[in-house]
Each structure stands twice: as C-alpha cells, then as structure tokens.
C-alpha cells in the first residue's frame, strides 16, 4: 500500500500548480480550468483519507465537491459569455471596471 503522505504531497503539488495558474493566467477560461484543477486536488485528498480510514464519507464529500464544481463551471462560463458579448475580450487585466 502506497503511504498516505505520498497522496497528500501529490495533491499539494496539484493544488499549488492550480493556484499558480489562477494567480498568473490572463485568459479567464484558463483560470476556470485551474480552479477545476484545484478542486480535483482536494478531491484526491478526500478520497485518499477515505480509502486509508476505510470510511466512505470522504467519497460522499467528493460528490458534493463535484456538484459544486459543475454548477460553478456552468454559471462561470455563462458569465464569461456575457462578459465577452460586452467587452470582446477574455483578458482579466482588461475587464477591470464594472460599468459597460
């Protein structure tokens, strides 16, 4: 059995890579993808704990996280379409004012 800490370290690496993407990318769709990557790293942690403690509650949490991720992707991409219709850009540095 692979030790639990290996999974934790892998998921920390994945979460940090996702955080780097959120901090640094210009394209708003890519930022959404990096958020999905971070949520997936958290899912990996939850499944690893659930598997090592022989409880399925962690996997139930994973389903809730997946539901929230799907809802977030749907609403977020609708917002992206709505912003793109008004601004004609996906650059987060260029859409920094609220008014049209």
């Amino acid at each position, binding site marked *: 059995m692979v030790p639990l800490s290996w999974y934790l370290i892998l998921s920390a690496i994945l979460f940090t890579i996702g955080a780097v993407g959120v901090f640094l990318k210009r394209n708003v769709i890519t930022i959404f993808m990096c958020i999905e990557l971070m949520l997936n790293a958290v899912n990996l942690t939850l499944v690893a704990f659930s598997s090592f403690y022989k409880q399925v509650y962690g996997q139930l949490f994973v389903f809730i996280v997946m539901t929230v991720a799907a809802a977030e992707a749907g*609403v977020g991409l609708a917002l992206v379409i709505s912003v793109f219709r008004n601004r004609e850009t996906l650059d987060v540095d260029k859409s920094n004012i609220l008014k049209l």
Partner: protein
Amino acid sequence: MLKGIEVLFFYLLSLLCIFFSMLTISARNAVHSALFLISTLISVAGLFLLLHAEFVAGVQILVYVGGVLVLFLFVIMLVSSGQTTRRIFTNQFAIGVAVATLLGLSFFAAISQVQATNYFRAREAKQEVVTKNTEKVGLQLYTQAVLPFEIASLVLLVAIVAAVRLARDRKQEKIFN
C-alpha cells in the same frame, strides 16, 4: 509483487498528473489547455482506482471529462476571438509566484508536521483486495447523506436557472421580457 506494481502505477500516474497540469497552465492556446486538463483528470481517475474508489473514478470520467470539459471546449469555441495573445501571464508575475511558493511550502510543512507525529500510520488498516465500493457509497449516500444529496440537486437546479438567465443575449431578452 502487488505492492511493487501499485508503487509503479502510483509513480506513473502522479508523474503524468504533474506533467499534464504544468502543461495546462503553460499552454498558449486555451483549447490545448483544456485537452491537457482532460489528461490530468483522467490520470487522477486512475489514482482513484488505485485507492479502491471505483465509483468516484467513474463519476470523475463521466462528469468532468464527459460533461464539464466538453462545456469548456464549447465555450472556448464560442468566444474565440481569433487573435492569439503573445503574453499568457498577467502583470503580477513576481507576486503570484511568491504567493504560490508560500502556499506550496505551507502545504509541505503541514504534511511533514503531521507525518512526524506518526498520526496516520498508526490508523492505517489492512486493505482488502475486493471492495464493494459502489455498494457502500450508494448505501451511505441514500441513508445518512440524503440531505446533502438533495441540497446538491438544488444547487444544480439554481445553477441551471442562473446559467440560462446569464447567457441570454439582447434579442432573447427582448422576446422574454
């Protein structure tokens, strides 16, 4: 024998995960980024299989790869403006790298701290080879966790309504208002 193969698969899948996730954030084209993210998510699904969580692995493939990432690809193709940007990173490069490095170091510190106290290893039990993962998950999901399950479906309903409302264009708003 089984342990060696498991360690081998863990190394393989985790290297694939890290490789593809770094390609995800460094790809210039958003479509390439989405395809690399699909590869990352499939590798994570393999890790779920390695952890004997077969149902979660299947849901990961079906929901993320089959649903969310296809939605991403559709939106990328809807809003693609044609021009390729030369610079893919924001102007806050140095502070972003600094904050991310601090985040990663704090994770490693937390993990090594917990590892030093030997808290996990004492409670690791022997893994049975054949698990009834799907049966256990379904049983818990419909008995103990039935309220979060219903709340999750409510969240999805609200998200559907919000997405439909937000993504309408002007012409459709005139029709429906």
